[in-house]
């Protein structure tokens, strides 16, 4: 059960894309779950628990990324991370 990997496509909708602050928010949220969570874009896959990784994927505004999670709380992790994307990382 817990080892099934689930994924979801999300759009980066905030004004400046995935810069340091959104990256930190993603890491903070991802760290609450035991699941392995990755973000994939253009064939590059980085851990959502790595700030440096997230800053290298070039998540510019309007681009699409894929979240992939594996583990017992994977579904919850995707829900909460999706909420973060939808809320545009709480940027004004």
């Amino acid at each position, binding site marked *: 059960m817990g080892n099934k990997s689930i994924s979801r496509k999300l759009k980066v909708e905030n004004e400046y894309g995935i810069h*340091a602050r959104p990256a930190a928010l993603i890491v903070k949220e991802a*760290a609450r779950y035991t699941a392995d969570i990755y973000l994939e874009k253009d064939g*590059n*896959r*980085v*851990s959502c*628990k*790595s*700030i*440096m*990784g997230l*800053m*290298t994927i*070039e998540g510019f505004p309007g681009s699409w990324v894929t979240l992939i999670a594996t583990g017992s709380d994977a579904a919850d992790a995707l829900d909460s991370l999706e909420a973060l994307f939808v809320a545009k990382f709480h940027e004004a």
Partner: protein
Amino acid sequence: MKMREITVQRLLDQGADSLKLKVLAGEDYLSRKVQETAMNRPGLALTGFFTYFAHQRLQIFGLAELTYLKNLEPAERRSRLEAVFKQQIPGVVLTRKRRAIPEILELAAAYQVPVLCTSMVTMDFVNACTVMLDELTAPTKRVQGTTLELMGIGVLLRGDPGIGKSETALALIERGYSLVSDDVTEMRRTSQGRLFCWANDMTRYHMEIRGLGIIHVPSLFGVSAIRRQTELDLVIDLTMPTGEEDRTGVLQETVDILGVSVPLIMLPVRSGRDMANIVEVAALNQKLKELGHDAAKELDDKIISRLNGVGRGQ
């Protein structure tokens, strides 16, 4: 391992300065793919001999080819050149800043082949361009891990997020070793089967340290604390203790990266353990092994020979 194809455009972008490349004709066909890192001088093909003609390669027209062509009758020259252009070649390079023969420019358009020129001498161009093609076509990969160079030994630290890769790296930087990349490492495999590591352009020389945030390493520790690229010699996985660790170091584990087998050490992380010190010793030990001195194996051999000597009553 299959090499990556590159377009003539990519070679032109990268080689505009170092290879002094310019486009003479066929600008619209720069998307043609170069499929071999070697180059071909089409001397024999120009005489009409096409057996084993290396048509996937860039065709280099040097002084000899161009002088030969100039000495032909115009109609003959055109038909000889056309026979070469017909072969679906990826591109033509004229060396030594030679003026292009009009037929070459016409045929470039007719057969949709880009024609470039360089001011370099043929031999220098072929050498430099081979090296560049080799680099551009090498298989690459992005891996999660922090890369350091310790006394010429390239070490990749891997491990789950939060296990202490960056903290260990920071301690090693303070001891005078160099950071190559933090957390995300780009790798390239050369045609000789060597692996090189460097940092992503975006985050190069930055590190993230929990509690501190993002720091810029050369600003804090000076330029000697950084290195642009290193050859990978050793992979160290920081792990949670399992009790299954190799206690002797006789069994050398390896990990496959881009088809290259790299020595791997699993290091269990415990609180109070000085990881930087252990990584430092692991790198030194790897250096020793590369020099042909394997401490674990030598001790084991000594024990085995003693045991067998005793067993035979000597």
